[in-house]
């Protein structure tokens, strides 16, 4: 009889339903975005005035907008932009946030200054300042990425720092000190890996926040500008068409909800999977 190893990583992954469901959803979304040239034969920015405001049909799965543009194509195009922004924000906040948190953990005097700066940055209203920064950086895709990165770095630093402070007190770190391992090496090789689970979970949720924030900023007309489509500005266009062509609202809106849901499920699942306290006997609370 084949024995099932309940501690194997695959067994645990497949027994975390939210992680499985979230990953499947995300894989479907990402593959749809990548297969866009195969899935649709339309151009996201080509106006077709013979096909204005058509309801969903065989030719136009999600219908068309007021310029006769195919909504399915536009939602996929917009998704590429929205997901790209989310992913870039995650990558940059992770790199910058980790560096700052490590510097603070390493030089204790610097830590005081860093935390004061982070506190001041957190005093700003997140979305509002992100919108202003997006305008400062010129209402472009990279501008939105920069704006959201600046806004979210303090959050990453805070969470990472508290994890680092806890791990720094562990016996094995003390042991490493005692045998003369260089502090910087202890920081990067012994403490940082311990903080990884916290960081991974945090950044997954941040991915979801970033997508929501980008959509919000673009929705009010400050973020990603036409001709680039993003889920936010497609929805923004749809508000004026509400009474005549409500399908314009559903496609981009549902795309946001499903993507954010997928990321939240993955985040929940990862937290369950990576939290050592929840592994044994899986406290069903």
């Amino acid at each position, binding site marked *: 009889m084949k024995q099932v190893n309940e501690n194997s990583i695959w067994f645990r992954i497949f027994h975390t339903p939210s992680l499985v469901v979230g990953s499947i959803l995300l894989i479907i979304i990402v593959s749809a975005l990548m297969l866009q040239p195969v899935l649709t034969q339309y151009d996201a920015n080509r106006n077709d005035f013979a096909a204005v405001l058509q309801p969903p049909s065989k030719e136009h799965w999600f219908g068309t907008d007021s310029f006769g543009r195919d909504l399915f194509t536009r939602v996929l195009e917009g998704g590429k932009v929205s997901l790209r922004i989310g992913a870039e924000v995650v990558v940059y906040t992770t790199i910058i946030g980790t560096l700052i948190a490590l510097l603070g953990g390493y030089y204790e005097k610097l830590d005081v200054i860093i935390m004061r700066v982070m506190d001041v940055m957190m*005093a700003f*209203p997140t979305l509002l300042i992100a919108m202003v920064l997006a305008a400062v950086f010129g209402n472009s895709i990279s501008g939105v990425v920069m704006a959201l990165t600046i806004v979210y770095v303090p959050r990453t630093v805070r969470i990472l720092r508290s994890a680092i402070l806890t791990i720094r007190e562990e016996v094995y770190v003390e042991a490493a000190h005692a045998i003369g391992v260089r502090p910087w090496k202890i920081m990067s090789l012994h403490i940082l890996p311990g903080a990884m689970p916290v960081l991974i979970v945090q950044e997954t949720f941040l991915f979801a926040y970033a997508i929501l924030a980008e959509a*919000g900023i673009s929705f009010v007309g400050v973020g990603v500008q036409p001709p680039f489509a993003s889920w936010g500005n497609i929805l923004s266009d749809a508000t004026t068409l509400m009474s005549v062509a409500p399908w314009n609202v559903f496609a981009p809106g549902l795309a946001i*909800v499903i993507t954010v849901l997928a990321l*939240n499920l993955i985040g929940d699942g990862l937290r369950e999977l990576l939290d050592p306290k929840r592994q044994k006997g899986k406290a069903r609370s």
Partner: protein
Amino acid sequence: MTRYIIKRLLIMIPTLLIVACVIFLVVNSMPGDPALTVIGPEFEGDYEMVRERMGLNGTIWERLWKWLSGVLRGDLGNSYFLGDTVWGAIKQRLPVTLSLATTALIFAVTIGVPLGIIASLKPNSALDTTISGVSLLGMCTPEFFGGLIFMLLLSIKWKVFPSGGYRPISEGFGEWAKYIILPAFTYGMSQAAYFARLIRSNMLEVMNQDFITTAVAKGQRSFVVVMKHALRNALLPVVTGIGMVYTIMLGGAFITESLFRLPGTGLLIINSIAKRDFPVVCGILLLISAAILIINLAVDILYAFIDPRVRFGKK
């Protein structure tokens, strides 16, 4: 306690000053020249004069100093385009934003907290799973999408509520409520989801503690155990939660205001960014940041009062 409050207030002053400087520098580095917007492209000769009248001459540091000393005297400057002082423009629109955020918060708490309690009573039951699922979905739905759906159903299809606009409360509570309910409900829903999840996990944590077991063992009725023993403790983090959510709501109101055409500070800041009306953008940002700092302080103090464990300034 008093010393703690004074200390916190003293720390707040330099923080606010730094925040004000950052706001001014960031906003004024926006590309685009408001003087050109005022003057139009034709009248090149008057350009310098207009710049001077708008206070745009001099280095950025001189302008920062002038603005900051004005702010310290309670003068936020004049709008470039509105023909009004910044404070005047904000004062006129502030009631709208406060109405929206406060009503939304009331919706969020009155819907979210009971749902969280109900879900926690029978963990992993069908009811709990449904509530948890719906609140997860609520958290993933941006307010502008939820709002559009509500608008589609309640304003366009059934015509229960107007689809946008605002009436001040001075025109009667009924009128005011008719216009504010839909936006506030929309805006409150995602935060209701947050409260439901927060209360549920707090309740579950408290219900697993020894003093609950003791209360049950004493033969206390389960209603009393839940309401008196568990809920009291589970509500504690909600105090912080309410403060935090309110600050988020003040700062994020601009999206809902834009969707429902509510003429509040959020819509004002969006329009002011588009026109490069820097003094107005600075003024709104500064006021909301100050409000956030004050609310956070108030929450910390309140928390210290409620929870004896966090009473600072040791006796």
